C-alpha cells in the first residue's frame, strides 16, 4: 500500500485535486448567496495554484495566490458587502437553464472530440515534464528582453493600462 502511494504520488495528488476543482466549480454554480460563491472561488484558486505546482510552474502558483486571493477575491467581498442588498433569489427560467445546459454540453463534447481525434497522438501521450532550475530567471529575462522574441512592449503597455484603469475607476466611482 505504502509502496503504491509512493510510486503513484503524483497521480494520487492529481486526481484528488481534480475532484476538488470540479467540486468547487460546481459549488460556485449551485450556491445561492454570492458570498459563498466567492469563498468557493477562493478554494478553486487554491487548487489551481496546486495544479501549477504539479506542472513545475512555481512562479505561476505564487502569482495566482497573490493576485487572485489577495486582490480580486478581497475586492469582490468588498463589493458584495457594499451592494448586496438581501434580495430574493431569482433563478432563470427553466427553459433558459435547459438551453444553457444543452449548449454547454455540446461545447464540452465538441472540444473533447476535437482533442481526441484531431490532436497528434504522440503529443497527447507525452507524460513527462522536464524541470528547469532557472525557470524564474528565464521568465524575468524574457519579459524584459528587447530582442525580437522579448516581451518588453506588452509589459509596458500593461503597466500603462493599469495606470489608466486606476485613474478611470476613481473617476467612475467617486462622484
Amino acid at each position, binding site marked *: 500500500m505504502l509502496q503504491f502511494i509512493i510510486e*503513484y504520488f*503524483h497521480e494520487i495528488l*492529481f486526481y484528488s485535486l481534480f475532484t476538488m476543482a*470540479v467540486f468547487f*466549480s460546481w459549488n*460556485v*454554480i449551485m450556491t445561492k448567496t*454570492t458570498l459563498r*460563491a*466567492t469563498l468557493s*472561488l477562493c478554494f*478553486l484558486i487554491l487548487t489551481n495554484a496546486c*495544479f*501549477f505546482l504539479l*506542472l*513545475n*510552474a512555481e*512562479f*505561476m502558483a505564487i*502569482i*495566482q495566490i497573490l*493576485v*487572485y486571493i489577495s486582490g*480580486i477575491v478581497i475586492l*469582490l467581498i468588498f*463589493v458584495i458587502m*457594499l*451592494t*448586496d*442588498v438581501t*434580495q430574493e433569489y*431569482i*433563478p*432563470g427560467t427553466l427553459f*433558459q*437553464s435547459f438551453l*444553457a445546459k444543452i*449548449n*454547454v*454540453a455540446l461545447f*464540452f463534447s465538441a472540444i473533447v472530440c476535437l*482533442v*481526441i481525434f484531431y490532436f497528434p497522438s504522440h*503529443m*497527447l*501521450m*507525452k*507524460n513527462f*515534464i*522536464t524541470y*528547469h532550475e532557472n*525557470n524564474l530567471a528565464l521568465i524575468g529575462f*524574457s519579459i524584459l528582453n528587447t530582442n525580437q522574441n522579448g516581451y518588453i512592449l506588452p509589459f509596458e503597455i*500593461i503597466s500603462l493600462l*493599469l495606470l489608466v*484603469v486606476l485613474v*478611470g*475607476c476613481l473617476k467612475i*466611482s467617486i*462622484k
Partner: protein
Amino acid sequence: MMDVLQITLKHWLFLTTLTFSLGLYSFLVKQNLISILIALEIMFNAVAMNFVIFNQYIYADLVDGKIMAIFIIAITAIETVVSLAILILLFRVKQSNQIKYLLMKTR
C-alpha cells in the same frame, strides 16, 4: 502495472475543458452581476492554465506560455476592477445588482 493512471496532456486538457464548461454554464445561468464576474474568473483561470500546460508539455525549455498566462492574469484583474466600479455606479442608480433590473429603464 497501471499505465492507465499515467497523467498525460489529455488529462490536463480534460480538466481545463471541464472547468471552463462549468464556468460557461454559470455565466449563462446566473442572474446576479457579481456571480457572472465570478464565472468569468473561473473561465479565465482555465484558459491561463491551458497556456501553462501547453508550455510545460510541448515547449518545456521556453517560457512564452507562462508569460501569456501572466498577461491573462493582469488583464483579468483589470477587467474585474473596471466592472466592479461600473457595478457600484449602476447600483447607485438602480438600487439592485440583478441584471433583470439593470436592463430596465430608469423612471
